[in-house]
């Protein structure tokens, strides 16, 4: 691999752009293909399939064998709520290789002392989230318990392409949330995208256990098909 190619791959990752690397396995020749150039590439069909599945693959084209390496952006967890659960979630998410962003307009919660080294936005979600962007590699987790903060973020999440939405709160709290969403015009299908009560049922009690259950559910959303079989 050329250093130039390696550098471009790393640059794409930092900019959250998907990238495809095609390597000729006999010569080692390579080319980097961005999403916009997939359709004009000689291996367009294969590249398109690899990108869609998010899976690297070995393919044969005539006598040649190529390896298509798919690099998708790192998964990002957008946490609304600079709360105790978020503090526990940060180190766990790091171990999993995910980026975490914290949004909470309450300046007493959103402090660097509580979240060292984490991108932290002490602003209202409807103001800051549009600038951060929610993409298909983003999970949105609502943890404030406060509709004034959670709901605007939830509206943005439901209007965007993301792979997971989770919202903290009991069934009763979620029932009220569903009523507000219905009143705001969201369809049953859209509302069904929300995982609530948030997290896998592992009997979590402590903030760290709840964070673990949320990350388990995020992993399942990423790795399993809707029917529960392996994607």
């Amino acid at each position, binding site marked *: *691999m*050329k*250093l*130039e190619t*390696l*550098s471009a*791959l*790393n640059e794409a*990752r930092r900019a959250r752009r998907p990238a495809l690397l095609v*390597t000729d*396995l006999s*010569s*080692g020749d390579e080319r980097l293909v961005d999403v916009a150039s997939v359709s004009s590439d000689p291996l367009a069909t294969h590249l398109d399939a690899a990108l869609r599945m998010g*899976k*690297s*693959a*070995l393919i044969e084209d005539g006598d040649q064998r190529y*390896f298509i*390496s*798919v*690099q998708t952006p*790192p998964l990002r967890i957008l946490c609304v709520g600079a709360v105790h659960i978020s503090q526990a979630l940060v180190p766990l998410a*790091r*171990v*999993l*290789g995910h980026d975490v962003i914290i949004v909470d307009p309450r300046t007493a919660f959103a402090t660097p002392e509580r979240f060292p080294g984490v991108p932290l936005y002490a602003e209202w979600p409807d103001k800051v989230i549009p600038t951060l962007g929610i993409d298909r590699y983003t999970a949105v987790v609502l943890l404030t318990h406060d509709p004034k903060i959670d709901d605007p973020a939830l509206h943005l999440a439901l209007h965007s392409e993301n792979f997971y939405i989770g919202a903290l709160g009991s069934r009763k709290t979620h029932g009220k949330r569903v009523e507000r969403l219905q009143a705001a015009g969201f369809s049953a299908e859209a509302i069904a995208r929300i995982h609530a009560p948030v997290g896998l049922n592992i009997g979590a009690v402590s903030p760290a256990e709840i964070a673990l259950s949320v990350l388990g559910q995020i992993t399942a959303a990423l790795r399993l098909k809707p029917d529960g079989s392996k994607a």
Partner: protein
Amino acid sequence: MQANDEDILAAAEEWRRAGREVAIATVVETWGSAPRPVGSRLVIDGDGNFLGSVSGGCVEGAVVTEALDVIAAGAPKLVSFGVADETAWQVGLSCGGRISVFVEKVAA
């Protein structure tokens, strides 16, 4: 933290820019119950230091040896490990799977 393959590529670039010789090994094909999926990577420097994994620990030692050859020779190599291969059995892909690993040098 070198938790995923992208972090490993960032390390590869950093190592190379610091003047170290670097090779990248990528799992390109698997059969049976291979321990790490296609696309998994191991980054190796000229002194045999490595990051990442291609088999969860089973054949890393052998891949490092291949990488040092590739660093010396310059040309890439496709290597297979599996139960069908006695040498591979010795290096320990005992889980019963087979993997093909593409080893290439980071040039320039």
